[in-house]
């Protein structure tokens, strides 16, 4: 496994794709920080500002912004095999 990445995921509690993404991180033993945008307006603004859009999940992996549970992109950003 490559050097540890800093991973932030912006989620809403009912979003199935957010859940899938979190499961994916857990399965691959990737530590992540979760920011629930449903609970905090400021976090929602932060997410919209970072990604230029309003859909969840959004992932910030070492500064790379990924919108949606795009496994191929996530893999690449995390240098997973």
């Amino acid at each position, binding site marked *: 496994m490559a050097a540890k990445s800093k991973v932030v995921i912006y989620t*809403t509690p*009912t*979003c*199935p*794709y*957010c*859940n*899938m993404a979190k499961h994916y991180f857990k399965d691959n033993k990737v530590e992540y920080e979760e920011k629930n*945008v*449903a609970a905090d*307006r400021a976090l*929602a603004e932060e997410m*919209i500002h970072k990604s*230029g*859009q*309003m*859909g*969840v999940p959004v992932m910030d992996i070492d500064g790379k912004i990924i*919108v949606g549970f795009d496994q191929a992109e996530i893999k690449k950003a995390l240098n997973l095999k």
Partner: protein
Amino acid sequence: MYELVIIGGGPGGITAAIYAARKKMNFALIAKDLGGRTGLVPEIQNYPGFQTISGLELTDRFKHQLDELKVVPKFEEVLKVEKAKDGFVVKTDKNSYEAMTVLVASGARHGKLNVPGEEKLNNKGVTYCATCDAPLFADKDVAIVGSGGPGLNAALMLMRIAKKIYLVERGPELRGDKMLCEKIVCEPKVTILTNTRVKEILGEKFVSGIVVTKDGTPEEIPVQGIFIEISYTPNSEFVAHLVKLNKRYEIIIDDNCKTSVDGLYAVGDVTNVPQKQIVVAAGDGAKVIWAIFDYLHRQK
């Protein structure tokens, strides 16, 4: 060679897998994900045994049941099903599988309005997943297009979040579950627009409004979000060259969930069964295993 390959991990495919596992059939379950569109339902209130359960929780329970039966799904995307001498070849993005029978339970995906602005503003106020994105529209004005089950569910969720809601239906009245309709009609936040079509979505960086025609007269409505909850497109492309489809690209099945091809079966939202419901997909998922079991028996 497998006796059966099940394509799809929604309630149809999962129920079929449960029955196939209990019959100790030699089968594989191939799906892009587990749960399918059931995972997208915020509150399910018409699945027996649960007064209310979220799609996420029901999906977790489905997964649990598969785990207990030691069914390990293959998370792959089916690209094509071909006819072979003794059955079928199922080609995925990663592998190729031989099977004597195939069950297609690949569901459907959301429909699009195909109006100007929809592509450009996708995820910028245009959304197809209320369950996912509704919280981002707190205190905003939004429109929901479509008043079937998904549209009404979106309305129910947004009633707690958004400031003002326009529920747009092109027909003369709301279509979904009457109990839900009554709740929504009584909510002062909701304006119901029947006989209304969306013609354009407006906005530069984010959605700023929609243009609708009501009874033929155009009108601009300022909204910051538009939730598109209209008719589905069945995920039938990978068998379209093989089986008979209807005009809506749904796979035509008979009373035993058999398609126009021997050994090829289908259940759930991908079929011409008009009731697109979890319990119906699950029911047919159970029923079809008997038919397949009998068919395999006759081949021996």
